[in-house]
């Protein structure tokens, strides 16, 4: 399977803090690929590098074979990289419908004069977007009952769903989801898992997500990369990752103090 996104030897540090060290992994096309790891492992930093907020000191990110260095976030959006945020980043002053329509911004062309007159091409374009959003996104994510509501009035789970809808309106090729089910109840999690699988299957979109809910990660992922202390410990199929001793150690910790000290300080000699 060809990879749509390839991370090669990526390093990012903030002063003395090494957020990412020599991170390499690949995201095969049309898969659900998950990055897991304990808090502070560098998962969100990795996402921010891919969306263009952080500039890594070393390494490259290849998207569809093209190196993304120096490409600004709005251009990456137009290239088909969409994402949602860990802490919901919806526009609180707008309705659900307007939030979703904003996702289509990069695919629209109307200029200021057309907008002022709301006539001709500008109007037709708005109608086409409305139709696409209604028929393909609102319907698909089952949020038709809230489309007129201001997002600030919605529950957490629904806000997450609206954020997903907005990302889908960008017609992405790679959809990056930062903790899509954090803070959701069981039913909402099941819905979200179903949506993610459908997005991959029906829309042919590659999903790259960060998530802590292990049962969901193991159930829906095709490919998993494990990050700890800014480094990739292992990557592979869910079943392979699940039984990897290093992963278990990273997640459950270890009773062996020496190995922990050694991890924090590589020069530490076992006494």
């Amino acid at each position, binding site marked *: 399977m060809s990879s749509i996104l390839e991370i090669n030897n990526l390093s990012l540090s903030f002063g003395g803090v090494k957020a990412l060290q020599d991170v390499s992994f690949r995201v095969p096309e049309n898969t659900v690929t998950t990055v897991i790891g304990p808090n502070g492992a560098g998962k969100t930093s990795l996402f921010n590098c891919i969306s263009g907020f952080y500039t890594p000191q070393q390494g490259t990110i290849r998207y569809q074979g093209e190196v993304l260095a120096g490409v600004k*976030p709005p251009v990456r959006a137009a290239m088909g990289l969409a994402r949602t*945020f860990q802490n919901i980043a*919806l*526009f609180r002053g707008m309705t659900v419908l*307007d939030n979703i329509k904003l996702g289509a911004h990069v695919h629209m062309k*109307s200029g200021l004069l057309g*907008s002022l007159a709301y006539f001709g091409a500008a109007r037709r374009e708005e109608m086409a977007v409305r139709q696409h959003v209604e028929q393909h996104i609102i319907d698909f994510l089952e949020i038709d009952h809230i489309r007129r509501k201001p997002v600030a009035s919605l529950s957490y789970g629904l806000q997450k769903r609206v954020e997903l809808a907005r990302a889908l309106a960008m017609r992405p090729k790679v959809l990056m989801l930062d903790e899509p089910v954090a803070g959701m109840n069981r039913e909402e999690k099941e819905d979200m898992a179903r949506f993610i699988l459908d997005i991959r299957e029906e829309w042919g979109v590659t999903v790259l997500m960060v998530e802590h809910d292990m049962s969901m990660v193991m159930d829906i992922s095709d490919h998993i990369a494990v990050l700890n202390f800014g480094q990739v410990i292992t990557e592979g199929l869910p079943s392979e990752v699940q039984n990897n001793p290093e992963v278990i150690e990273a997640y459950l910790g270890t009773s062996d103090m020496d190995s922990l000290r050694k991890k924090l300080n590589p020069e530490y000699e076992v006494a």
Partner: protein
Amino acid sequence: MRIGDAKQSYEADEAIWTSSTQKIWLAIFLLALAVFPFFADSYLLYMGCLVGIAVISTTGLNILTGFTGLISLGQAGFMGVGGYTVAWLSLNTALPFPVTLLLAGLLAAAVGILVGLPSLRVKGLYLAIATLAASVFLHFIFAQWESVTGGMGGLSLEPAHLFGLTLQSDFEMYFVIVPLAVLMVLAAKNVFRTRIGRAFIAIRDRDISAEILGINLLRYKLMSFALSSFYAGVAGGLFAYFYRVVTPESFPLSMSIFYLAAVIVGGMGNLLGGILGAAFMTLIPEVLNLLTAALTPFYPNAPIFMSPMLEIIFGALIVGFLIFEPHGLAEIWHRIRRFFSLWPFRN
């Protein structure tokens, strides 16, 4: 109670006025605006024109501050650019009135873009200070560039001509100012039905995620500045034709604060709020004056007592609005509408 307004097409659903009740009231309102000059006395006409100009300028500032979240204290300066542009053009060229007005808007927009350049880096109070500096700078130019602006004495204009008519009285100016105000508010409303308006609001609410959605922040911030100062420039041009004189003191800093207050009192990020705020800020001092006059027969000392109080009462009203109605006059309007749309049932 509003019933039976289910929509059959997206087009109908996205219309500005969706119910027939709304359309009827709108028609009544427009008709009232059209016949107003035939019944109003000269004082009311004068106030009507002032409100019209204030509505245009407030709508412009609302686009920038209310919708895009960029605080500006430069509005009076931009209006000044518009005012001086029409004054200079009407004295030195034979360009027709609509063209001078358009050029006034465009030049003000160009100045607005320049002033807006720091907005990519600075926000909030810092941007307010940057625009304040720009407005002081513009004021300096108006006062000192004597060969163009006439220095402290300013410029006097001939009345405008339109379709062979001379726009000399307030009555004639009313029929230029008010239709233009209606058109420009409508155009602003249109912007917020399209991707550009949404991009403005996105920048106000969360600029980082706006960027992720592919919105070029600098471009849209500058576009908002340009649009806002275009409105200010046109308002300033009308202002110049209305008073037929522009001096540096026609566009003082307090005017910028006046418009900022109008946006806040009316309701930030709400076009109707901008209209109500502009009317409120223009008319309340006059209403207070009338009140003083009405009190005089009963309390002969009323003018002596009231005239220093007017500013205080005016200020207290604004503070009162901020505390009790932070979403502005527009919110009061929406409450009234909700009440009637559900009447006779309780909301």
